[in-house]
């Protein structure tokens, strides 16, 4: 049910950059302002359309997975409450993604630059989350083999790359804040702070939307 959530960032980045990219290139934003629409309304309407489209694509995915998956594999093994909490986290992370990419789409005028920056950012967030995840998943002991008198001896030794508690806390925080990290944790069902994740997503959404609104108000549209 949550397998799609890892790729959703890339999908939203591609869709947002191509759908909202034509707003500048075709002069749609200029026309909207000319006929008297407020800039804040234009920004919010674009954000809402992107969010609803992302949710729609996820609902389609869920519909097919439930229709085929439940008869094949049976009902979900986790509790309904936990399942709804996970869906809430996915929704929050999707809104955070949408606000980041809408921010980029409304700030950058060039369609090509916007598409490249959005897709690179989506992959960057994904790779950053993966590296944080790898650090957190490092085992405390590793197997080391050596030859003693012609015999191979395997022994467990402490992992020199095992992170300290401080480093682990920082990595966990970065993983929780990053929407891609949240999706990784949801897909792997290895969430440490399930109750806090939606608040991080909300914070990202508010910060990027606020910043986007301020910059879009000041932007010169030529």
């Amino acid at each position, binding site marked *: 049910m949550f397998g*799609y959530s890892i*790729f959703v960032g890339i999908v939203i980045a591609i869709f947002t950059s191509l759908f909202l990219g034509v707003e500048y290139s075709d002069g749609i934003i200029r026309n*909207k302002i000319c006929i008297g629409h407020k800039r804040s309304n234009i920004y919010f309407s674009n954000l809402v359309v992107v969010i609803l489209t992302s949710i729609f694509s996820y609902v*389609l995915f*869920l519909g097919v*997975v439930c229709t085929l998956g439940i008869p094949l594999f049976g009902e979900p093994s986790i509790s309904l409450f936990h399942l709804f909490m996970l869906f809430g986290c996915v929704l929050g992370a999707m809104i955070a993604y949408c606000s980041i990419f809408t921010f980029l789409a409304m700030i950058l005028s060039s369609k090509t630059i916007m598409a490249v920056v959005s897709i690179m950012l989506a992959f960057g967030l994904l790779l950053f989350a993966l590296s944080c995840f790898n650090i957190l998943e490092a085992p405390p002991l590793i197997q080391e083999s050596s030859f003693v008198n012609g015999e191979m001896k395997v022994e467990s030794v402490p992992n020199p790359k095992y992170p300290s508690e401080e480093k682990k806390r920082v990595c966990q925080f970065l993983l929780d804040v990053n929407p891609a990290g949240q999706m990784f944790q949801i897909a792997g069902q290895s969430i440490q702070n399930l109750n806090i994740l939606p608040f991080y997503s909300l914070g990202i959404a508010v910060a990027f939307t606020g910043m986007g609104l301020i910059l879009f108000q000041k932007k010169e549209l030529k």
Partner: protein
Amino acid sequence: MIRLFHANFGRLRKNKLFWILSLFSIGWAFIFVLMKYRDMKIYGNIIAV
């Protein structure tokens, strides 16, 4: 605001990318379920959906 939504949704409905995205979601869901089903048949384990 309502007129803006109306215009945006009208543009969305005519946008090929939106329909490609929808098809991608459905296609990925099929692949995902089939992959899990194949794993279940090979390894015989019960997989939580």
